[in-house]
């Protein structure tokens, strides 16, 4: 699932207030002394891990193929159900329910082989038919087309008992990556009415669920290896503040995705670990590239990118819990182009570019934003202050969330946006950068980029593809409508006794099957 807005809202909870704190605080210690704790000692079996996660009572979703607006539901479903693949550090797609996969030479037909010994919680083996049923069911949801892009329901088929064949409408070298986001597997023929109790294949079995809270017990038969915890209890929290209070009071062991404010509070506490997951969320500024926009001239966009003080943004907007970015989306990708020179602030050059482009400096431009994610509006304000030094006058306009997504998103000349799915360069290329993409936020139509992206997607050889993807990123860096100044960390808090916590952004943050308690 591409994260929906609400999910992102939780993901970013607290960043705004963090900005306030940062404004009065000194520099932030970016080292993570707690990280070492996690790798020490020999793993112990047993114990119940209590995890608090954000969610709203009226948005509870029990259907693994529904849109999980709640972090808490997402966490529960991810522990009970398996996806075909999961995120990894390097490579960024690892096997799970599918033990291996191969593609045809044209990269349209993909065969996923199921893991040996994979069974449902009721003991029955997982077959290709079950996966086909699940993927087709997912494809049939209201947002199915955007969850399995390029794959029609009729092109999902079983081959024997352990192979699933997917045929994409176009060459897609990154299809296995899609399979890690959306592919929770349930049994063939599961009726909609029974979906809440449908047995999964994951590391934990659902013992009970009530009002967003759940208890999950270890699945001893899990094909993915030995799980150490006896059980995981998931507690739903409405506000990051309450979530953080519960952790500090010792009522829970992990506060998942709780945000920067909580981290600042907890840093003084010796008995609490602050877990930072880098590259968790992008909060870029969108400059419309289409004709008619004041930012249509690439020189103007370049000037704005040069006018921003990235370090100051990270320090103040993210409270230091983040890193500087280089206007390329997909920073968490192992194939991210690290070698593209980092753009730094250059006011003189920005001014001369604006002059060359004949940019009207007498006018005041509106930067539209929402307060969906705390910090978003503050980012806009700080940005406006910074570019003023390049003589660009920007007025920040805060819109109510509904209005923003209805009227400004995909349409405005200058606005803020945010993406929690920081998966890969390819994800963003297909989602927001390719000319014909449905959510082309910047109105960017660049034939050179499109061609480079398509060639990369149709190239089977990994080395050759990596080279092509680097080119894709270079074009994006030079010409796109995005000003990506930095990346926010995802932040979890945990009691000192918890080990083996997930460290990856996005879907990686809910992989708790390797956690254990050092008590």
């Amino acid at each position, binding site marked *: 699932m*591409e*994260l*929906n807005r609400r999910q992102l809202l939780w993901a970013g909870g607290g960043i705004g207030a963090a900005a306030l704190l940062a404004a009065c605080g000194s520099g932030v210690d970016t080292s993570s002394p707690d990280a070492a704790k996690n790798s020490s000692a020999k793993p112990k079996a047993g114990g119940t891990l209590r995890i608090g996660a954000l969610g709203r009572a009226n948005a509870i979703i029990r259907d693994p193929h529904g849109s999980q607006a709640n972090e808490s539901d997402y966490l529960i479903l991810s522990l009970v159900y398996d996806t075909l693949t999961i995120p990894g550090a390097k490579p960024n797609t690892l096997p799970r329910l599918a033990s291996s996969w191969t593609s045809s030479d044209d990269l349209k037909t993909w065969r996923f082989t199921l893991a040996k010994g994979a069974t449902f919680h009721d003991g029955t083996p997982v077959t290709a038919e079950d996966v086909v049923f699940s993927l087709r069911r997912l494809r049939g949801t209201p947002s199915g*087309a955007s969850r399995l892009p390029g794959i029609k329901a009729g092109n999902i088929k079983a081959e024997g008992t352990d192979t699933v064949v997917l045929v994409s409408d176009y060459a897609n070298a990154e299809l296995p990556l899609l399979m890690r986001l959306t592919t929770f597997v349930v049994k063939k023929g599961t009726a909609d009415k029974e979906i809440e109790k449908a047995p999964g294949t994951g590391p934990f079995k659902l013992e009970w669920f009530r*009002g967003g809270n759940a208890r999950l017990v270890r699945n001893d038969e899990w094909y993915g290896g030995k799980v150490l915890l006896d059980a995981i209890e998931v507690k739903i929290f409405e506000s990051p503040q309450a979530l953080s*209070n519960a952790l500090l*009071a010792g009522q829970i062991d992990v506060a998942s995705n709780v945000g920067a404010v909580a981290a600042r509070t907890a840093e003084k506490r010796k008995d609490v670990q602050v877990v930072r997951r880098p590259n968790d969320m992008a909060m870029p500024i969108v400059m419309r590239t289409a004709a008619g926009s004041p930012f249509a001239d690439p020189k103007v966009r370049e000037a704005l990118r040069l006018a921003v003080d990235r370090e100051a943004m990270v320090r103040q907007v993210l409270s230091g819990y983040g890193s500087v970015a280089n206007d390329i989306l997909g920073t968490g990708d192992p194939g991210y182009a690290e070698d593209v020179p980092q753009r730094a602030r250059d006011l003189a050059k920005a001014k001369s570019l604006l002059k060359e482009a004949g940019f009207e400096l007498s006018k005041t431009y509106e930067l539209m934003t929402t307060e969906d994610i705390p910090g978003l509006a503050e980012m806009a304000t700080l940005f406006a202050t910074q570019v003023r030094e390049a003589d660009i006058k920007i007025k920040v306009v805060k819109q109510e969330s*509904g209005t923003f997504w*209805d009227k400004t998103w995909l349409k405005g000349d200058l606005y803020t946006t945010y993406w929690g799915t920081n998966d890969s360069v390819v994800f963003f290329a297909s989602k927001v950068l390719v000319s014909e993409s449905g959510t082309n936020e910047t109105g960017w139509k660049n034939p050179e980029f499109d061609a480079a992206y398509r060639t990369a997607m149709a190239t089977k050889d990994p080395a050759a593809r990596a080279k092509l993807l680097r080119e894709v990123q270079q074009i994006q860096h030079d010409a796109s409508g995005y000003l990506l100044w930095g990346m926010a960390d995802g932040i979890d808090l945990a009691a000192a006794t918890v080990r083996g916590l997930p460290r990856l952004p996005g879907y990686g943050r809910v992989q708790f099957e390797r956690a254990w308690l050092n008590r």
Partner: protein
Amino acid sequence: MAEPLTDTAAQPGAGATGGKTSVPSRPWLFAGVRLLGLLARRSLLLAVLLATLFVAVELLPGDAAMATSERGESAADIAERRALLGLDRPVTERFGDWMTGLPTGDLGTSARGEPVADLLSRPFPNTLLLGGLALLVTLLASLALGGWAALRPGGMTDRAVSGGATAVLALPEFVVGVALVLVFAQWLEWLPAVTLADSGGAPASWQMLVLPVVALSIPQIGWNTRIVRAALADEAEAPHVETAVLDGLPSHRVLLHHVLPGALPAIAAGLATSTGMLLGGAVVVETIFNYPGLGAVLAGAVTDRDSPVVAGVVAVTGAVITGVLLLADLVRAWASGGRL
């Protein structure tokens, strides 16, 4: 929630009104008819309130289909869901449909496809428990404090209690709540900071109820203490009380047996007013303490532009408040000998 700072509710009780001339031959029948009339009036008020809410949600920017959509869903997908949710029909029609289901207990379906009645059935008992306990604490504390202050009018205690009551009645619940968490959960570590639900959906232990109940009660105790104090003061000037005092009865006896009964109608009215405040304050307090109640549902429903859910929450809380107001009327009727 705006609370007037003056004691508007502390008017003379029914016993002090002058309508004693035309008592009908069968007072209880008359009272019953009056009661039904009151019930009808309050139900009508609730219906008007619900209609206003539907319109208010309609006026908010965006709609339920947009608010619950996934980013990246096409305009066609959203339009389809808009049709599915019936949002393309006029608001009057949707409200009419929703209202006709109401008498049968059908509260409609949420924007996320769950029956509203189911959605509310889990948290509603928890909110009632929180509100009920807070009402009880408010009643006991304000009676005790108000009575204590009334024993020596103008004395040190009286001034301290009245001053304290005025100070706390204006405190917002979130200030009280945050302060309580800081002191009792984080510094002293005496009580849990948040309320976690057990497998049955109820608060997992009674200790978890303490802070939310106290946070909710404190402003209402301030409010009701003033009412109790004022009602007792009014009643203390009644001739029968003077007689009792002149008879040399001990002051606590005068207070309990001679002053309090006459002051009850005003006190009941004050408490009934507090019910609304308590249920309103619960929304805030539940968020601070992560209490598994209606507050979370309401807050989320407003964000979702989910009119059936918003109206459902208001309908059930409105029914509770109407019930309590009726109860207060009955107390007044009883205290004034069957007149309403």
